């Protein structure tokens, strides 16, 4: 556990405190810009923004429970290749940090060119509900209420997204700096923790007052995690039952129209042009006719289940469970439930956790001689 | 088998060549590669204090005294198993006999005593041309100065007597081998 500092909150407005924090980061010579969520005019909720002018932080709001898309993919575009002088500081949710680390393992971005600042994540609403929560529309009281709930309970009759309700990584311990919310009174002050040597460096330069962890955070986390793990087990059980055979799986995904939104929203699906968009799946007429003749009738469009199976095969070891796929699906297909369940079992099988450690190589790129002996029969 | 784990520090002197007899035996076993086949196939190896292959090793080191003190070569019943199976084709049984001759010639009293059986046998042959078993055994008992020895042969002697197999020996060939023994003795002194 690195050193801990305190971010003072004046007049009960934590958002302003964090805006000041970002400005101080930008003032540091090494940081050339800050990537942070910014409130959208009108319908509420936030979208990531790259702020280079210290004055422009006024509508930055990293605490808003709005998670319209994962900023990981944006950060890779900023940090790929040689750095353009100065680091990009990024305020990210824990699942965005872990998604970014996975992408760096695939040479899509580089950790050297960025300072990762992760916030304790009490969860966020689905894109549909984000607008309807008053906290997102400037009601500071509702926002403070939401923060004090430490990620539990419901607000204005609405619950946070199911992905967040079943998320067991609410803290981003892998980032350089972590802003701790759980167990703190957002009105009074927040804690800042440094996890990596680079984080320590910046913390000293920021010159924030020392602080000590009174354990409140850990207690709050325990309560939250037990609840979240229970919800996760229940989700896994439901999904596994629903998709245990081909017919179950095809009904589960029957609403899919191959719009491939889930792929576009997924931070770790890094292919430039998915094979399903290439000519490989532009079948010739005689092919469709032959299938139809063979089976009597052919569901159109074809290759929907095939698509999800292929995506599972490609990225289930890298899935961080951020829920953006369900968020982006126009027909409310429970994609997140399927992917999180499958990802959990594949990552357990390989004893690997997506985004846990930048040094840990992705499972399929490493050959271990004595693995899965129950399958290979122990004989090589 | 007395196993010699107690270290015997000795400094192997350079191979002295004046010792004609030792050199002759050494040349017989020089190509030994210490594979242990002779030791494993010798029927009497259980009673030997030095394993045959240890004895060849000490010979090559020139440790003549230590070899002559051991009783290994006296226990050789020349059954030729070792000579047959030695992968280096060494005349091992002939080497054992040569060691007996060496012990008889240069060995201490114990060795000379053990050689008596063979020397008495050959004296009897020299006198009678053909071995006279009765005469030879009597001379052998006398030479051994061991009163208990004849008793061991008591029961055997009686049985042979009963079966009429004890002959006082014919004297047809008495003295026939005198000139040959004398000639051989003079030739051996000369060389």
């Amino acid at each position, binding site marked *: 556990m690195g050193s801990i500092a305190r971010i003072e909150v004046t007049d009960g407005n934590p958002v302003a405190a964090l805006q000041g924090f970002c400005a101080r980061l930008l003032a540091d010579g090494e940081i050339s810009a800050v990537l942070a969520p910014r409130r959208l005019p009108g319908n509420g909720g936030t979208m990531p923004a790259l702020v280079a002018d210290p004055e422009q932080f006024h509508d930055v709001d990293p605490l808003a429970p709005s998670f319209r898309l994962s900023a990981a993919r944006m950060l890779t575009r900023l940090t790929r290749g040689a750095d353009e002088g100065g680091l990009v500081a990024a305020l990210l949710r824990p699942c965005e940090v872990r998604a970014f680390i996975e992408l760096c393992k695939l040479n899509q971005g580089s950790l050297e060119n960025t300072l990762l600042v992760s916030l304790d994540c009490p969860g966020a609403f689905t894109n549909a509900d984000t607008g309807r929560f008053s906290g997102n529309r400037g009601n500071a009281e509702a926002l403070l209420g939401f923060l004090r709930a430490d990620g539990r309970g419901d607000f204005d009759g609405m619950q946070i997204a199911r992905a967040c309700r079943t998320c067991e990584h609410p803290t981003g311990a892998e980032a350089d700096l972590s802003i701790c919310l759980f167990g703190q009174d957002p009105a009074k002050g927040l804690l800042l923790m440094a996890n990596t040597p680079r984080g320590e460096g910046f913390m000293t330069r920021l010159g924030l007052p020392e602080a000590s962890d009174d354990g409140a955070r850990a207690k709050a986390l325990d309560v939250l995690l037990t609840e979240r793990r229970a919800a996760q087990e229940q989700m896994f059980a439901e999904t596994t039952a629903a998709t245990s055979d081909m017919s179950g799986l095809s009904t589960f995904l029957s609403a899919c129209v191959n719009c491939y939104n889930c792929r576009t929203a997924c931070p770790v699906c890094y292919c430039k042009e998915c094979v399903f968009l290439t000519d490989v799946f532009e079948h010739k007429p005689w092919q469709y006719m032959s299938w139809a003749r063979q089976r009597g009738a052919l569901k159109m469009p074809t290759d929907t289940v095939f698509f999800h199976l292929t995506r599972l095969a490609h990225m289930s070891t890298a899935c961080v469970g951020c829920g953006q796929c369900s968020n982006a699906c126009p027909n409310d297909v429970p994609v997140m439930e399927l992917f999180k369940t499958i990802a959990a079992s594949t990552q357990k099988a390989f004893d690997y956790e997506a985004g846990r450690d930048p040094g840990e190589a992705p499972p399929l790129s490493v050959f271990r001689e004595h693995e899965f002996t129950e399958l290979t029969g122990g004989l090589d | 088998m007395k196993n010699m784990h107690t270290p015997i520090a000795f400094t192997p002197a350079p191979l002295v060549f004046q010792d004609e007899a030792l050199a002759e035996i050494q040349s017989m076993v020089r190509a030994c590669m210490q594979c242990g086949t002779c030791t494993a196939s010798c*029927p*009497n190896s*259980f*009673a030997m204090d030095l394993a045959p292959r240890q004895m060849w090793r000490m010979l090559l080191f020139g440790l003549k005294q230590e070899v002559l003190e051991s009783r290994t070569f*006296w*226990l050789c*019943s*020349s*059954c*030729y*198993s070792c*000579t*047959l199976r030695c992968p280096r084709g060494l005349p091992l*049984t*002939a080497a054992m*006999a*040569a060691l*007996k*001759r060496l012990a*008889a010639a240069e060995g201490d009293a114990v060795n000379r005593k*053990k*050689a008596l*059986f*063979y*020397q008495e*046998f*050959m004296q009897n*042959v020299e006198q009678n*041309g*053909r*071995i*006279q*078993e009765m005469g030879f055994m009597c001379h052998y008992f006398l030479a051994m100065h061991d009163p208990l020895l004849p008793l*061991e042969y008591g*029961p*055997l002697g009686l*049985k*042979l007597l009963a*079966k*009429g*197999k*004890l*002959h006082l*020996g*014919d004297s047809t*060939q008495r003295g*026939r*081998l005198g*000139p*040959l*023994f*004398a*000639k*051989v003795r003079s*030739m*051996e002194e000369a060389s």
Partner: protein
Amino acid sequence: MKYAYYPGCSLGTSAEEYDVSTREVLKRLGVELSEIPDWTCCGASAVEPVSRLLTLALPARNLALTERECPGLDMLVPCSACYLNHLRVGRECATDRALPGRINEALGAEGLSYAGKVRVRHLLDVLASDVGPKAVAAQVSHSLEGLSVAPYYGCQALRPFALFDDPEHPRSMEPLISALGATVFGWDMGGRCCGASLMATRRDVALVSVAAILDAAAGADVIVTVCPMCQMNLEAYQSQAHHADTISVLYLPQLLGLAFGLSDEQTLLDKNLAMTDALKGKLRACEAASA
């Protein structure tokens, strides 16, 4: 078939039955023997520890006599020790060219010279290869049906010069035994050493070998040997080797003599020290069966 016969010292004294039975059996088989005149002792297993030259000179003397007195005949030797001593002269002269000179210098004392023309043959070799089992079977009048015979070859007949049989697993006696109608007792101690002269110098060691051989022969009616020292060691010391039931040890020609129906004087069975009544019973049964 005619051979120069070298009986050896022990066949004149303690192994008289071997000499007599050999002569009778060979006569029955039409083999003519002419004893080498003026033969002397070959030194047996006692000469080599005394003198290297004598080891070769003594047998060379008998060989020279054979060349002079019975030219062109092979020398037939019943006793394994004498056989090896005589055979070794020829073999060592072949490898060391200086040896014949020294031997003849020694034999010069008696005006004899050894030319190396004589072939030394063991009695077993003659019976097995020259006479052959068929000729033996032809002479059998009292088939030894039901008699279990353990063939014992000793050492020096087989090693180190393996001329007529396999030195590790000898088999040459077996056709002869079956020719007599007897059954060959299956054991692999045929080539194991009986302790030879150790019986005199270190009896305790020799008795261990004898005991091992006798134990292995348990179940056979009789052991058959072709060497007087082995016969003496196996037969005379059975009690000292604390061997429970004694087993009789015959010479091969004695066994042949029984099957040929030779008289007791011709086989001198009474000379054997351990004629068990079990064996006597069996022999009588054979006689009755064939009479």
